[in-house]
């Protein structure tokens, strides 16, 4: 034969664009045709025609082959409807659960924030790590002003601070949450008002006319989206503000302490700056927009350098303080939320893998049953590649149908997840089945289809014709078949083991978390927040008067055992002010006698109401008056850090430049972290400094009511007590302290619940998988077992035979799974509380349980094996 020309070789290559069996069938002929035509017509004209032909007919041949395969697939699946349905259901649930969890991960963690150039947004913190306080402190006003003046990395920086407002506009006074923000927040977020104008720099001046910006939600709820609200007055905290604009829903506090959608601010007022404030008061949250082409690291470098310079300039307040910058997507979560979500995504993925293994098993069993059909078709001239492609199409099309059902499952379970997700996780409203999530669902569906469709397809490609035809289909199960199935058992057991270990660790952690000593007794305690607007209560005396009257009248209620007030109740949202405290004797001299502490302004009797133990000294009392010497009570840990040698009561400490006498020590309490929610149950108690509400006036206070009555019974009386004193105050929302605590563990509880559900599903699917494989193996070994029974093997020895084979493989899987769980200890360790991620009891217990499950799965086939009738078995074929 003549050597082929370059053109011919190129053409042969191009023929691969056709379906494989087509080009295998006709490639040779078409090349010959090409040769003939080139000889007759010349290369140029032939090539032009050929390329056009290729572009037209290759896709249409591909499609027609696909249509043919899909039709065939549909017909064959209809022949085994139960199997098809079982496979579909398994996959649909698997894909559905995965897509739902992914929608959460995507909506909460991955989706970009809804701002222009959102990747340039950062949150700025003051970093107290060097003094052991951690990197996530609020920002002091004066430091912020210094940054604005000097920092070059930012296009704009804004600070804000949450505020409670009493809106007296429509009927009953209403309490709404909002923020005082700098005008620069508009520039940082890159948002413009829907109507009206943004805040201006001048609005921040102390003498400026009060103005307010409405959030879209309040605008819609209270004003029916009327654009004419701009210019109208609105009464906030008894002060007339002029509405100057309305901002879209995305205009909100972003970053670390954002408390879900419920906590989104509804109204914004300009932050007026009190330049007399102490530089050491960390009260504001800061966000910034980096300049273009300034990286996060560059900004961090600059701010750290700047902070170092300021440490030198303001040693009294800035010593050991640096600056930390984080992207809001990172800072808005407890890092454990990220770990939890990714862990859950991994766990649900593992469940899908196990489900796929089961489906692969089903499909493989079916392929084995069809060995004869396939062999016959091969004998009639179907090429192995063609048959493989057809099997793959069968499985992928089954997977796609399941995937579409799976998306429906995802839609339903996503709704359920959204309601289960605690309010402490931000961006829940971003969770939806959008394009990205759908693409993900279809992607994993296709991967599944290919995964479980590949094995039978590959096997059929090298099916042994002769054995298939001569041995009635059964002989076709060669050793490679067993290897594959046993491999599935090992993989399933391994994955399930890892999941079960994880879930068991999380479960123990949750139990320990819920039993951690709190330092107070939450049972029977109700809390509420009450604000005293400056207009109605212009001075300290008026506020103190209100507070005393309120506490006094509540105390007289029959079901109330004790009442008190504090700045913010543990685990409940509220103001948390961290202050620097000095030992008076060493002020300015020794850094050792200085500590950061949370400042709580409390009434006499608070400790009794909350159930905090007074260790030494006395509680605040009526003798502590506005004019009398300032007094303070310290928590145990604060006492230890200021005066490690004891002898605390009677000492003087300095707070905000004024000396306070320490009159007592109380026990440490959890839930009083410097974060907006007071931290989690797992956070160690922080040092707290208590001062008397008689000596330090406060605008917003948290009521703490210890009562025997249930909430609904006492609520009207509390509301009446408030209204009797001041009818324009909004009615307080009472909530049991237990609920706040439960909310603080809602996230770990959800993680644990889901992990347990996934582990349970994995366990169940693995059991089904082992059962399927062992049943099948017993079926294949009917003759052998029959012979053994005929030769006198007893029940026990037959059961032992089956159990041994099953447990050997499962045991291998369990061992691998334990290693897998061990290797994940770093990731899961961060989620655990008082449980080691390599806890030997958990590992041993899981291994034991999994062995039990595997034995259970083998039991039925084993019992069936003992019932094999040797005569029938030997006559079999």
């Amino acid at each position, binding site marked *: 034969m003549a050597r082929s020309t370059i053109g011919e070789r190129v053409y042969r290559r191009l023929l691969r664009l*056709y379906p494989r069996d*087509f080009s295998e*069938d*006709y490639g040779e*002929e*078409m090349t*010959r*045709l*090409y040769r*003939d*035509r080139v000889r007759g017509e010349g290369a140029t004209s032939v090539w032009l*025609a*050929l390329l*056009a*032909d*290729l572009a*037209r*007919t*290759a896709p*249409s*041949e591909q499609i*027609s082959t696909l249509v043919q395969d899909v039709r065939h697939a549909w017909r064959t699946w209809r022949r085994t409807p139960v199997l098809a349905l079982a496979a579909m259901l398994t996959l649909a649930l698997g894909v559905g659960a995965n897509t739902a969890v992914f929608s959460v991960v995507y909506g909460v963690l991955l989706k970009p924030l809804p701002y222009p150039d959102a990747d340039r947004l950062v949150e700025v913190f003051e970093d107290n790590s060097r003094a052991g306080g951690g990197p996530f402190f609020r920002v002091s006003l004066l430091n912020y002003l210094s940054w604005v003046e000097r920092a070059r990395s930012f296009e704009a920086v804004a600070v804000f601070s949450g505020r409670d407002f009493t809106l007296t506009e429509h009927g009953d006074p209403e309490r709404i949450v909002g923020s005082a923000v700098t005008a620069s927040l508009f520039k940082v977020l890159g948002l413009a008002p829907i109507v009206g104008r943004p805040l201006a720099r001048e609005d921040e001046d102390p003498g400026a006319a009060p103005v307010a910006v409405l959030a879209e939600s309040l605008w819609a709820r209270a004003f029916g989206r009327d654009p004419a609200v701009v210019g109208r007055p609105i009464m906030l905290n008894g002060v007339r503000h002029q509405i100057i604009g309305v901002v879209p829903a995305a205009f909100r506090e972003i970053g670390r302490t954002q408390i879900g959608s419920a906590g989104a601010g509804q109204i914004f007022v300009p932050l007026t700056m009190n330049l007399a404030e102490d530089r050491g008061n960390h009260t504001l949250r800061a966000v910034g927009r980096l300049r273009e082409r300034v990286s996060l690291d560059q900004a961090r470098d600059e701010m750290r350098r700047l902070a170092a310079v300021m440490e030198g300039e303001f040693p009294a307040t800035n010593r050991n303080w640096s600056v930390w910058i984080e992207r809001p997507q990172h800072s808005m979560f407890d890092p454990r939320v990220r770990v939890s979500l990714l862990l859950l995504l991994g766990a649900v993925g593992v469940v899908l893998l196990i489900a796929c293994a089961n489906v692969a098993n089903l499909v493989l069993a079916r392929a084995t049953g069809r060995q004869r059909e396939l062999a016959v078709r091969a004998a009639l001239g179907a090429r192995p590649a063609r048959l493989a492609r057809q099997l793959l199409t069968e499985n992928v099309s089954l997977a796609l149908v399941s995937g579409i059902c799976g998306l429906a499952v995802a839609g339903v379970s996503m709704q359920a997840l959204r309601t289960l997700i605690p309010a402490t996780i931000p961006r829940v409203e971003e969770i939806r089945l959008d394009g990205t999530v759908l693409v993900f669902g279809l992607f994993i569906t296709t991967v599944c289809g290919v995964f479980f469709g590949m094995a039978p397809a590959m096997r059929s490609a090298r099916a042994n014709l002769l054995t298939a035809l001569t041995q009635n289909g059964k002989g076709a199960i060669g050793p490679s078949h067993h290897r594959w199935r046993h491999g599935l058992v090992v993989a399933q057991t391994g994955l399930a083991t890892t999941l079960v270990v994880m879930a068991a660790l999380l479960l123990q952690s949750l139990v320990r978390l819920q039993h951690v000593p709190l330092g107070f007794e939450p049972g029977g305690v109700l809390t509420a927040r009450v604000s005293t607007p400056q207009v109605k209560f212009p001075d300290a005396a008026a506020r103190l008067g209100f507070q005393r009257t309120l506490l006094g009248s509540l105390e007289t209620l029959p079901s109330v055992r004790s009442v008190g007030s504090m700045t913010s109740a543990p685990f409940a949202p509220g103001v948390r002010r961290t202050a620097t405290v000095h030992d008076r004797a060493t002020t300015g001299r020794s850094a050792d006698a200085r500590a950061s502490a949370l400042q709580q302004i409390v009434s006499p009797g608070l400790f009794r109401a909350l159930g905090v133990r007074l260790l030494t000294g006395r509680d605040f009392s009526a003798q502590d008056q506005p004019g009398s010497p300032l007094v303070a009570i310290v928590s145990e840990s604060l006492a230890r850090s200021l005066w490690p040698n004891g002898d605390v009561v009677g000492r003087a400490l300095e707070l905000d430049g004024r000396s306070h006498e320490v009159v007592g020590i109380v026990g440490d309490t959890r839930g009083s972290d410097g974060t907006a929610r007071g931290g989690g149950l797992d956070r160690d108690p922080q040092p707290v400094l208590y001062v008397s509400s008689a000596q330090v006036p406060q605008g917003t206070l948290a009521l703490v009511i210890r009562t025997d009555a249930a909430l609904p019974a006492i609520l009207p009386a509390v509301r009446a007590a408030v209204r009797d004193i001041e009818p324009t105050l909004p009615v307080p929302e009472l909530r049991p302290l237990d609920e706040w605590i439960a909310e603080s563990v809602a996230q770990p509880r959800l993680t644990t619940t889901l992990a347990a559900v996934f582990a349970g599903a994995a366990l169940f699917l693995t059991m089904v998988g082992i059962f399927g494989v062992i049943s099948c193996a017993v079926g294949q070994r009917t003759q052998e077992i029959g012979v053994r029974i005929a030769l006198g093997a007893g029940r026990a020895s037959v059961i032992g035979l089956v159990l041994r084979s099953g447990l050997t493989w499962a045991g291998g899987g369990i061992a691998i799974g334990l290693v897998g769980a061990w290797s994940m200890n770093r990731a899961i360790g961060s989620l655990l509380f008082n449980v080691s991620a390599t806890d030997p009891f958990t590992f041993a217990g899981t291994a034991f349980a999994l062995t039990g499950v595997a034995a259970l799965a083998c039991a039925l086939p084993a019992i069936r094996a003992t019932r094999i009738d040797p005569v029938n078995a030997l006559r079999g074929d």
Partner: protein
Amino acid sequence: MPPQTNPDDYLPLAVATFHILVAVADQDRHGYAIMQDVATRTNGALKLSPGTLYGSIRRMLDEGLIVELSDRQRPDEDDERRRYYRITAFGRSVAQAEAARLATLLRQAKAAGLVPGRA
């Protein structure tokens, strides 16, 4: 086996299919010969491209309109061992049905005065 039902179910035939049936109606031909025959009969107006030709052949084999000749049935003079195709009885009846359909159509067109020249 390919489904052989009523020939009328296959009408109207695709142009390429009909031409191929015509080409193999009088003698067994290989692909290139079919292409040349079609080109000659249409004075070069229709040149079946390889994709169209073999795509059609594949479908026609599936539908039982033509068969491929076995090695023994091939003409002896062909030393290149090309693949030859032969029309089946069913293929012939489908081609006849298509021809009849076209004849009827042509008659109707003539009656409507759409066909010029000799009647």
